[in-house]
């Protein structure tokens, strides 16, 4: 390898090393800033409520016998978000068999070898079901037998075969009802697999250019350890046990009854019986059902944020149930009506079914912003109409209720410092990566944004990019002030590197490369330059009096030849050829005077 290529390889290798280490260091610094902000917010944030929830019939109008109305509450554990965003947690979550949003091919796994086990066999393209069942034989006796069933788009059988078809890219509803709903992205249709009837029903095929792209079916949720929707059913006076409320004005929640209902749980409560006007009335809790029961409809979350109702019988979309609400962000979001599933850091969906018929009564949805500082809560009736909204607020000593995102960034004690630090740390990032963060901001999934080491989807620059009210030019201009500091620091780095190159006598072309690299990558280039620059002690040039490199033939400042004044060798030499150099020179000048030794 020649010296030139050796040097370039050394610089590139060192540069890669420094870039990765600097970015990792900046990542952890930014992460701790974010953690600090989230810890502060966790203390100050409230829980948005929609009260009454409007999901229960008795709550319509001013029903006086509603002792305690229902409400829907959104819980946001802000401090969990930092940990949830880390790659390790996401990696494990995405591979746990029964977690919402899991990509595991194992759908159900009972540790008992005789229990139910269901998984996708990718090589066959079939869903495999294992169970132990009692089979009635022809003679009337029952035997327990292990069964294995293979389900494909075209049917189910006890042995795999081509006639069953292949699932190429299935999405399975992880709600484990009697019939399993599956959507295949390649085949563009829904399937209902009934393991007990051993049938596979197909729904209609969607058009190829249809806008739908289901991402979850059945139990909908993402990062549900940091967000969840809590539903408290209403408490109604039990008219069979106690007289109706006579005072129409006294329709206020009865705290004692609420407490009792919580003690006894969500069963029908019969408390002591009516013993007079001073005794608390008997109430009963209206029972609502959510997941885990056979219902006529299930839910499909689309990538756009729309939640549709899917009829389990016809396997058709029969209406809209809800949308993922738009949480407040520092920069206005492109749409105000719904947020894409990839744009929400977390969401939870709570449907409500009532009565023995399990009639769909509506739902509540909560979605969390990308940076996990705000939650939006909405309640929808059975027709998909929004009937209630709520969002998070942050409370400080000075402010009694700011949007939680503004409180988190600017108004909580210590928040301005953390925000300033965030900006500074982002500015120390290589400018070219900040530009890349701007242009890729919308393409990176929200949860992945918290583990960005090179590209920063949660930076101010990226947030400005997601303000889709404006065109790309205006968005870039909006983001420019956030990049200016980074460019300024890169300019300083370029100046440092240029001075270093001049001092070391590095060629003009090479110096230009270093300057360009410093403008693009900033701090890592300065460190790379320091680590790879030639390590020679410079000596003073006799001609110009400035430091020069002894490994260069000529002074890189004045181009004078090399002299070593501190060494004083003698002028004579005894070298090969019988003559010294001086004699040879003298002989050339006066050849007629030369005598043979």
């Amino acid at each position, binding site marked *: 390898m020649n010296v030139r290529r050796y040097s370039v390889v050394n610089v590139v290798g060192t540069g890669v090393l420094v870039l990765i280490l600097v970015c990792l260091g900046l990542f952890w610094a930014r992460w701790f800033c974010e953690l600090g902000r989230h810890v502060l917010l966790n203390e100050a944030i409230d829980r948005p409520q929609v009260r009454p929830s409007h999901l229960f019939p008795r709550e319509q109008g001013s029903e006086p016998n509603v002792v305690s109305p229902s409400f829907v509450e959104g819980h946001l554990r802000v401090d969990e978000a930092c940990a949830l965003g880390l790659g390790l947690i996401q990696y494990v979550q995405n591979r746990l068999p029964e977690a919402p949003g899991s990509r595991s091919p194992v759908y159900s796994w009972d540790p008992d070898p005789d229990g139910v086990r269901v998984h996708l066999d990718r090589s066959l393209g079939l869903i495999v079901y294992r169970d132990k069942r009692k089979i009635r034989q022809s003679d009337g006796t029952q035997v327990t037998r292990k069964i294995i069933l293979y389900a494909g788009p075209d049917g189910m059988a006890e042995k795999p075969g081509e006639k069953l078809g292949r699932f190429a890219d299935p999405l399975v509803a992880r709600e484990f009802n009697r019939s399993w709903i599956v959507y295949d992205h390649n085949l563009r249709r829904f399937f209902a697999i009934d393991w007990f009837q051993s049938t596979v029903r197909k729904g209609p095929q969607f058009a190829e250019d249809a806008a739908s792209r289901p991402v979850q079916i059945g139990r909908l949720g993402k990062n549900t350890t940091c967000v969840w929707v809590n539903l408290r059913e209403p408490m109604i006076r039990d008219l069979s046990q106690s007289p109706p409320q006579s005072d129409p004005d006294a329709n206020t929640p009865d705290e004692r009854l609420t407490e009792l209902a919580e003690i006894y749980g969500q069963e029908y409560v019969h408390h002591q019986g009516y013993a007079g006007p001073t005794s608390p009335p008997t109430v009963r809790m209206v029972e609502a059902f959510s997941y885990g029961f056979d219902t006529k409809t299930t839910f499909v979350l689309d990538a756009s944020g729309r939640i549709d109702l899917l009829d389990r019988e016809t396997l058709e979309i029969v209406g809209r149930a809800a949308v993922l609400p738009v949480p407040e962000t520092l920069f206005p979001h492109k749409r105000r009506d719904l947020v894409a599933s990839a744009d929400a850091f977390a969401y939870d969906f709570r449907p409500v079914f009532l009565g023995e018929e399990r009639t769909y009564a509506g739902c509540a949805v909560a979605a969390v912003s990308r940076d996990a500082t705000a939650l939006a809560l909405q309640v929808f009736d059975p027709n998909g109409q929004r009937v209630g909204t709520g969002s998070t607020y942050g409370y400080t000593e000075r402010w009694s209720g700011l949007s939680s995102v503004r409180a988190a960034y600017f108004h909580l004690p210590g928040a301005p410092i953390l925000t300033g630090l965030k900006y500074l740390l982002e500015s120390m990032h290589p400018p070219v990566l900040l530009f890349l963060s701007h242009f890729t901001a919308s393409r990176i999934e929200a949860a992945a944004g918290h583990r960005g080491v090179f590209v920063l989807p949660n930076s101010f620059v990226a947030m400005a990019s997601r303000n889709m009210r404006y065109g790309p030019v205006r968005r870039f201009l909006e983001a420019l002030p956030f990049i200016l500091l980074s460019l300024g620091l890169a300019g300083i780095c370029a100046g440092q590197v240029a001075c270093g190159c001049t001092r070391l006598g590095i060629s003009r072309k090479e110096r230009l490369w270093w300057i360009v690299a410093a403008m693009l990558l900033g701090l890592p280039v300065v460190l790379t330059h320091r680590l790879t620059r030639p390590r*020679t*002690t*410079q*000596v003073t040039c006799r001609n110009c009096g400035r430091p020069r490199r*002894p*490994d*260069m*033939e000529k002074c890189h400042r004045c181009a004078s030849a*090399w002299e*070593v004044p*501190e*060494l*004083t*060798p*003698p*002028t*004579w*030499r*005894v*070298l*090969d050829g*019988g*003559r*010294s150099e*001086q*004699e040879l020179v*003298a002989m050339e000048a006066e050849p007629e*005077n*030369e*005598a*043979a*030794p």
Partner: protein
Amino acid sequence: MPDNVIEVEGLVKYFGGRCVLDGIDLMVPRGCIYGLLGRNGSGKTTMIRILLGLEPATRGRTALLGQDSTALSAQTHGRIGYVAEGHNLIQNYRVQRLINLCKALSLQWDGEFFGRLIETFRLPMDRKVKEMSAGMRAQLNLALALAIEPELLILDDPTLGLDTVARRQFLELAIDLIQKQNRTILFSSHILSDVERIADRVGILMAGKIVVDCELDDLKDRVRKLRVIFPKELPGDLYLTEIINRQDRGREMVLTVANWNARKQTILDTFGPETCTELPMSLEDIFIECTRPVSASVVPESEV
């Protein structure tokens, strides 16, 4: 054109801001026994280390056996035997383990010869290298360098620490090696009688330059020390070039001159000396004269 085993062109070496070698040019042909001489700190060891690729040069080019010193292949290394000043041996190893390692990493190994050497030097196999005396380490280093049957042998003060008997044994080994065809030896030593005994050519390093680089016999012929007695007072300027040293005592002058020839004799005769006697010089005497500091010995010269 002889095949040069060692080539040095424009070699410059700086340690920090201090120049040690200032433009060395040297060619050592195959089959030559080259004695490299110089005072302490003149750069002999530095030059040898640069030749072997152990030290990077500041400027210039060096080559061994036709390959650049910075890119010597394993094969080329295997053809070179090296005894370093201070004896580079792995101190924590036992002698037997060190021998096994060197044997495994050699291209060829004369086990019989090595065995004889070990017997001659009476080296203990089970002792750690750091527990041996300096002389024994020197002997071990030498034996390891010779056992690989090197095409080029580089010895940096190899007899340092050896007793008289061991030194004599080394010399005999060296002579034995010389008699094998195409072996080249580069060695530096402060014991000039040894160098005088075996070297074909000598080089002397001084003030970062090679001031002497010729055959030994030629050197003795060309550097002359003369005692000149003048009838009256000593002449101020002799108009002689290449005076290495001049000492005046009354009417007597002792001159050491480089590249002595008839012309210089004629010039001296013009001053009418009473007597002019040549003082015989050994290599050691020549070395001492040549390496005397310039300010202490040389009278400012003028052109004839």
